[in-house]
């Protein structure tokens, strides 16, 4: 019996098929990398006696329905907000004799502004008709002010930048002692706590 030669599969079009598949996957791929501003909401609880915050420790940012900024009762351009917030947080107005004295602040030490970064509270009030874009810009600028100060202090105390280190630790790219680094990050956060309060928006803007 004559041995039959095995029939060959025609593979000439395989390259074309692979190419088509490649194009298909190229088109459907969406590489998602979501980033954003993280925030913690205050829990709902009946506060029986709310803590009294001194007027000088409060920095009020008011955004109206036309996306205009009113900072400490003065009209302000959003470009100046970051510096204004830094000046407020970094003021260190408590006198040198008091226990609240801020020994690392580099601000003007004006007695009519905040005592120290721990006491300082930034309060944002929005109108319901404020655009979400403006809301994010304001939040971004205020977080930037906090990050600036935290970077400065961590650079002074530990020799690295807070934001950079936090990113490395969170993403697991830090090669040193992670626990120690976490503790240092917490120290900085305690030194300059992010105290951003949000009032519930008023129904009608003024």
């Amino acid at each position, binding site marked *: 019996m004559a041995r039959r030669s095995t029939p060959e599969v025609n593979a000439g079009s395989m390259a074309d098929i*692979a190419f088509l*598949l*490649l194009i298909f*996957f*190229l088109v*459907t*791929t*969406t*590489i*998602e*990398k*979501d*980033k*954003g*501003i*993280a*925030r*913690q*909401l*205050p*829990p*709902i609880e009946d506060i029986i006696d709310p803590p009294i915050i001194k007027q000088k420790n409060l920095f009020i940012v008011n955004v109206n329905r036309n996306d205009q900024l009113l900072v400490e009762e003065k009209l302000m351009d*959003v*470009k100046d907000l970051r510096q204004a917030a830094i000046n407020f947080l970094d003021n260190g107005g408590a006198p040198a004799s008091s226990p609240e004295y801020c020994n690392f602040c580099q601000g003007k030490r004006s007695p009519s502004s905040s005592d120290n970064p721990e006491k300082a509270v930034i309060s944002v009030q*929005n*109108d*319901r*008709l*404020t*655009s*979400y*874009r*403006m*809301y*994010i*810009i304001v*939040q*971004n600028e205020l*977080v*930037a002010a906090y*990050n600036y100060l935290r970077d400065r202090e961590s650079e002074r105390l530990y020799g690295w930048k807070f934001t950079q280190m936090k*990113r490395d630790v*969170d*993403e697991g790219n830090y090669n040193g002692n992670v626990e120690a680094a976490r503790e240092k990050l917490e120290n900085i956060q305690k030194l300059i706590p992010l105290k951003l309060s949000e009032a*519930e*928006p008023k129904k009608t803007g003024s």
Partner: protein
Amino acid sequence: MLLFFFMVVTVLRDTNLLVRQQMPKADQVEKLKKDRSIFIFAGKPRSRYQDIYGTEAKIQIGDKYTPISNLKFALTGLRAKLRPELQSFVMVALKVDGDTNTGLVTDIKQELRELNMLKLIYITSQGNELEN
């Protein structure tokens, strides 16, 4: 080689976006931890849905529009789908279009507070709104 690369990285979209999504830009951002987050989309309906649903900003969860009154139910359902050990660390990712009013976002936040899902993240795109 390339074919295999793209085959591996391809994730087919599991939601069909019904609302416009042009997120505002920000640069003081953190990365989203995907395994423990649930998404809320909000914004005006996309142009091809505007004939049916109008132009008023709406909330989308999963594949459909959700009225604010139904938000709690939908979110608890989504949370139950996460891995059990991560359910207490749940993070809500808000993807909101830049032209939406803050009022809608505030309503969502109020519902989240009542549900005790206190960690949230405003998803933004890269850049800075002030630099253009």
